[in-house]
């Protein structure tokens, strides 16, 4: 375990030296596309030796999950230190060594609600990129009305017996484990009878089927549970209180999706400049004006993400207002990809060109993790206090 200084200026030197010594040249191209991302997991095929080296070195230093405590595979960094790490990685265009739902979602849930035993069992393999998780929330009858999940878990003493169907389970076909919302009390009001349960995808009775999207790719799956058994202790938080965990995680997910557009969380290249370079000039004044508007909004939303993080850091809860980031960030991302397509003209219409799949994929941004309309309803009721 690398020990980093708490002194910020010393830390900056240390992290700069560490990156210089440890981040392979090939990993310094700033690429964050679907093809270059490192998701990890038992079945992960590294796209290059450098990708594996980078993951191994970063995880050994705790830097795949920099803010997690060192006991669980992190580096125990403060938010200020994390900012410096991001700065310095940005400076050399370093790829993120590992990205996963384990890091973004299950990790934060376990850190908040898990037992010490669960944290020690599940967090380090996530940090090392050894276990890949997927999320089992939505069902055919539970989309925007997520609390209507019907997949059921029966208490069989030493295990839960699980039956049901999940949909939109991201990369379930590639995942090792799933964290799922399962109805464990059918008599209770719908929010009060759900548990947050961890299930090994290798268990008998778990099957997945990819769903082909309009973008041509299949990032989402249907996942079926037929008499699946999982140990009775595999519940995060209290039994029947899984909705609390789910809500907490949705907040995280919203922040993540809102920051998803390239460059939104600061520093990145101007989207307008990218457009300009790709098509040899934003000569159409209307397109140019739209690009300027999008730039003004992107920078301001990026600053809002920073401001909300600063608020959280100084103990001012952001809470339901995070729905705003999700709403504004995803709508902006859709706008930006409309601009990409407009700037690309007929060139962008060919599948080979590669712009169209990204454009099509963004259409899900304002649906997944809660639709824009659900976000607006959350804001109007819980932030503005409007009735109904």
């Amino acid at each position, binding site marked *: 375990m690398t020990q980093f200084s708490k002194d910020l200026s010393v830390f900056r030197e240390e992290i700069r030296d560490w990156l210089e010594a440890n981040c392979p040249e090939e990993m310094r191209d700033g690429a964050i596309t679907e093809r270059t991302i490192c998701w990890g997991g038992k079945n992960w095929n590294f796209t290059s030796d450098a990708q594996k080296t980078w993951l191994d070195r970063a995880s050994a230093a705790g830097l795949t999950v920099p803010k997690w405590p060192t006991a669980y595979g992190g580096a125990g960094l403060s938010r200020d230190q994390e900012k410096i790490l991001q700065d310095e990685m940005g400076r050399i265009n370093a790829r993120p060594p590992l990205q996963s739902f384990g890091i973004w979602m299950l990790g934060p849930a376990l850190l908040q609600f898990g037992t010490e035993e669960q944290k020690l069992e599940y967090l380090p393999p996530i940090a090392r990129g050894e276990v890949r998780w997927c999320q089992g929330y939505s069902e055919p009858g539970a989309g925007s009305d997520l609390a209507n999940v019907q997949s059921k878990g029966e208490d069989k003493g030493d295990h839960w017996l699980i039956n049901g169907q999940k949909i939109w389970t991201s990369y379930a076909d590639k995942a090792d484990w799933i964290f799922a919302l399962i109805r464990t009390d059918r008599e209770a009001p719908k929010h009060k009878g759900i548990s947050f349960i961890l299930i090994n995808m290798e268990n008998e009775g778990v099957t997945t089927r990819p769903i082909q999207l309009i973008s041509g790719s299949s990032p989402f799956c249907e996942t079926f549970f037929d008499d699946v058994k999982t140990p009775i202790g595999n519940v995060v938080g209290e039994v029947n209180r899984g909705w609390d965990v789910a809500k907490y995680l949705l907040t995280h997910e919203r922040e993540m999706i809102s920051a998803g557009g390239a460059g939104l969380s600061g520093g990145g290249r101007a989207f307008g400049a990218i457009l300009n370079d790709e098509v040899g000039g934003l000569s159409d004044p209307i397109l140019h004006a739209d690009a300027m508007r999008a730039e003004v909004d992107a920078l301001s939303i990026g600053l809002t993400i920073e401001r909300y993080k600063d608020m959280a850091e100084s103990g001012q809860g952001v809470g339901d207002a995070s729905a705003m980031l999700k709403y504004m960030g995803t709508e902006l991302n859709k706008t930006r990809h409309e601009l990409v397509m407009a700037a690309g003209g007929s060139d962008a219409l060919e599948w080979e060109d590669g712009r169209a799949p990204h454009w099509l994929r963004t259409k899900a941004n304002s649906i997944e993790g809660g639709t824009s309309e659900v976000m607006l309803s959350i804001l109007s009721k819980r932030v503005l*206090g409007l009735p109904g």
Partner: protein
Amino acid sequence: MAKLVRTEEEVMLADAARGFLDGAAPVSHLRGLRDAGKTHDPALWKDMSDMGWAGIMVPESAGGADMGAAAACVLAEELGKTLVSSPFISTAVIAATALKQVADDRANAALAKIASGEMIYALAVDETNKFAPEASEMQAKKVGNGFRLNGTKGFVVDGGLADRLLVLANTGDGLTLFDLPTDRTGIKRDTTAMIDSRDAARVTFTDVDATGDDVLGTVDDAMSVLKPALQAGQAALAAEMAGAAAGAFGMTVEYLKERKQFGVEIGRFQALQHRAAHLWSETEVTASAIMNAGRQLDENPDEAELAVSLAKARATATVQLAVQEGVQMHGGIGMTDAFDMGFYMKRARVTAEWLGDYGYHARKVAHLRGF
């Protein structure tokens, strides 16, 4: 950089300002001035000066509080919430920042008079219907040891009540900033009745003589003094606009909770809930841009241009949305003069133009971002 969260000092400043303004200058104060055919309340400005607001950016050595741009933005936002009519931005922010760049004996004396509330300044830059300081054509011909100014400046905010003017003029090899008393021979001020019921003037200069002492900063180099002053003014104006947006939005949300149609509060209707939630989202995003502009001006002033233009562009879009939605969601009553929303709408339109409109600042952002 300091965090994008208000400091304790800033929170206290905002609370104190709100406490005073709710009593001394609610929107009805502006209405009262308008109905009396006035644009300015000297007693109010005196009270504000006594509380240290006129000197908020003035150095302590000249009797000010020297709190910086972020603090000025905090005050401006509170002023905006109830549309307080005062020369705060033109005098306490723009002129004070310009004078601070020079900081010679004469400038320090002027700063002291700003802080005490004795002296009001206005900025005379615009020559066409759009803000374009770099394109100023008004001539200040070099005559002997001095200058002779001829030309006209429009949209001189607070120009009717000002004691002094900061005048941007072309001196042949560049632009020069003059600091002139409004009673100088040859200066004629025509106050213009503005839609927002605030003071503004068209100022005509006919063979106005100026000396080297009247130049603020260096001849042919106005921008080294004017640019920081404009940036501070633009950031504070953006904050005032955010305050106005918050004022209009607050009225609107209250109305949604009270007004009943079809037997229920109209705030129960999803069509209106979503419009209100969208508007709130826009105000939150704009608040971040404004806070960032204040922090940049205080900590990294040479690099603040992008942050300032971002704030003014966002504030312009947001306040205009806020007043339009405000009228629409109020329905017919929003169109009546008896109701305050109209005051917000008119002020929003004026602030949208002053010191650069959306296009001016969005173009700056695009340029600074490389396209």
